[in-house]
């Protein structure tokens, strides 16, 4: 294999694929990227962690000898990073070594044969639809913070994606949901064409993170999604773009719809930014990881307070719209902030029932995103 390409092209591509590669690997070849020089004058670069793989096609300045080889992803990435801007990089594989040359630099890196490089068997992916990159990015942004990191409940370690008929004649919808058992985030969009009859899937957290990174450069493009009950493939930028293929979490996501309250009769309306800042301020003195903040609701007024056994007390009063009966309720300050930081409006609606019941938070009843937060006993 011998090929030449722009340093910037190589660097950009490696920055996409190298984050899939785990830093510590027990199987040596999983530390490598597969580089395949194709006769047509392009390079195919691929990385995998066995659950997730990414393939990217990049243009080469020239392919002298087609062929394929695998080499350490992090080494090659670090080298590409340190090469001078604007340089031409030549990659040549021979005798179990790959020679990387640019300007006066010359590296000889150990390689492993391409035939040992594992690829995910996609199988049949019968469901196909497309989504605008920006919408897919928003779906991820609005839900991913609620993904559980607790590995004992592995089926919560991802975003649940499913289709449904929708409510009140809204037409068929696609929904994304994530929860860690304390809070839930749900994002709704109208069902894309081709998604009807789609199986329910749980997209793993790492896949979500990698996809979101790739979307940053494809916000204005269409993303093609192909899936089966066990695999999903995202294609960004068409045939010669980036293809992310991932296994799905094999588990049953809980029936989250039953925890979304429908009859919370106490409505609080206030400015999400001011609310966020006030919560953030009083939580300064909280010492526990959970940072419980107490909210006292009264006629058009919210009183936030924190009592810490070590650091004293903090309180702040906020103007708000509230006309229901007085209520005292506690929340994890971080959970509350996570949700409030999702709000891009001037007003947020907080629908409460009592101090022990799930609380619904959303921009308004038209909003695509909806959040449910469980209180803390304070």
């Amino acid at each position, binding site marked *: 294999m011998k090929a030449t390409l722009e340093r910037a092209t190589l660097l950009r591509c490696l920055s996409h694929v190298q984050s899939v590669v785990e830093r510590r690997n027990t199987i040596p070849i999983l530390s490598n990227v597969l580089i395949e020089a194709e006769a047509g004058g392009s390079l195919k670069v691929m990385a995998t962690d066995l659950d997730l793989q990414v393939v990217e096609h990049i243009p080469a300045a020239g392919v002298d000898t087609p062929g394929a080889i695998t080499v350490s992803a992090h080494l090659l990435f670090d080298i590409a990073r340190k090469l001078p801007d604007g340089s031409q990089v030549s990659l040549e594989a021979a005798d179990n070594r790959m020679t990387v040359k640019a300007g006066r630099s010359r590296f000889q890196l150990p390689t492993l044969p391409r035939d040992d490089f594992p690829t995910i068997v996609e199988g049949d992916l019968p469901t196909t639809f497309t989504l605008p990159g920006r919408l897919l990015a928003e779906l991820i942004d609005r839900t991913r913070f609620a993904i559980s990191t607790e590995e004992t409940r*592995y089926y919560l370690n991802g975003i649940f994606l499913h289709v449904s008929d929708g409510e009140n004649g809204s037409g068929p919808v696609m929904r994304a949901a994530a929860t860690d058992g304390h809070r839930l985030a749900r994002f709704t969009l109208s069902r894309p064409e081709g998604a009807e009859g789609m199986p329910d899937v749980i997209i793993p957290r790492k896949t979500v993170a990698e996809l979101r990174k790739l979307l940053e450069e494809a916000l204005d493009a269409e993303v093609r999604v192909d899936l089966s009950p066990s695999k999903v493939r995202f294609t960004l930028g068409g045939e010669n773009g980036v293809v992310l293929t991932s296994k799905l979490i094999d588990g049953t996501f809980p029936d989250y719809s039953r925890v979304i309250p429908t009859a919370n009769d106490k409505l609080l309306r206030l400015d999400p930014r001011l609310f966020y800042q006030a919560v953030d301020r009083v939580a300064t003195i909280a010492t526990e990881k959970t940072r419980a903040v107490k909210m006292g609701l009264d006629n058009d007024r919210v009183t936030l307070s924190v009592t810490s056994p070590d650091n004293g007390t903090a309180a702040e009063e906020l103007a708000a719209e509230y006309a229901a009966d007085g209520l005292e309720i506690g929340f994890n300050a971080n959970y509350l902030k996570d949700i409030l930081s999702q709000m891009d409006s001037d007003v947020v609606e907080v629908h409460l029932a009592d101090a022990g019941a799930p609380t619904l938070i959303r921009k308004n009843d038209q909003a695509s995103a909806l959040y449910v937060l469980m209180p803390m006993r304070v």
Partner: protein
Amino acid sequence: MAAASRKIIHIDMDAFFASVEQRDNPSLRGRPVAVGGSSGRGVVAAASYEARRFGVRSAMPSATARRLCPDLVFCKSRFDVYREVSGQIRAIFARYTPIIEPPSLDEAYLDVTDACSGGTTATAIARAIRREIAAETRLTASAGVSYNKFLAKLASDQNKPDGLCVIRPGEGADFVQRLPIRRFHGIGPRGEEKMHRLGIRTGADLAARDMVFLRAHFGSAAEYLFRVARGIDLRPVRTHRTRKSVGGERTFGEDLRDEASVRAALATIIDLVWERIARVEARGRTLTLKLKDDDFRLHSRSRSAARPLEDKEDFARLATLLLEQELPLPRPIRLLGLSLSALQDAPTGSRRDAAARAAQLSLF
């Protein structure tokens, strides 16, 4: 001076497991006996005094023990019987005081301060207990009487077997001064080596060092060493010992080489340890996997869940996850173990965090 006026007894059964075997099997009496597995990798759990004369010690590999004492008779351990006898002796203690701390099946600390208020002495109680143990179990125990746990334990060890030793208030510091460092509770062969390197051979040598020196060389153990070198130990006799972990391990007859056999072995250990966890109703968040390879190198990997592991499925899943990270095995392994820690209600600094976690209500 509440501390100085305490009266503490330490009762320690003599070569407990081995003595039970000799009691129940007359042909073993007078012969060197070891309780434990005799197979290639067995370990001596207890050795009779006859065996100790040859240098056989508990925790010694059975192969070594056999080399030291070719006539050694191995007995399989019978924990049911040991537990039963242990129950008998605890019942005897309870006749004298409710404040009993049994660190293991064969020993206990008793606080008899209140029991002595009527004019009886702690020494008289210790004698009575030894007499009753001998009469009711046909086994012997040694007793140590002093004013704190550390000295009481040293005392019970002083005239073993079948002995009694009293260290009176005011004598503690002198008693400790003369002791070789190895006799101090918590100082094992490694600790002894280190002490010797630092020129410390006796309690007096240790007492001559100041706090700065101790802290520099022994870190968090410094305060303990500083106190016990002066015969001071303020720890109360605790009737409810808080358990810090529940675990178990197995050494295999043959090294495990392939993944299938390691997974199978893990499944066995999951069953074993979960059974123990369920029995003591422990709830913990941190699981540690322990592996010893054929070169006797010990590795451990641990991982914490956000909440206590509630059922065997969660427990097994986390255990499997820990093992998967070790695969493929770089070397064959001879020992595999699991232990659950960060137990709830354990007196750790995170109690407040745990309380806060409990305060967070759940959707599911």
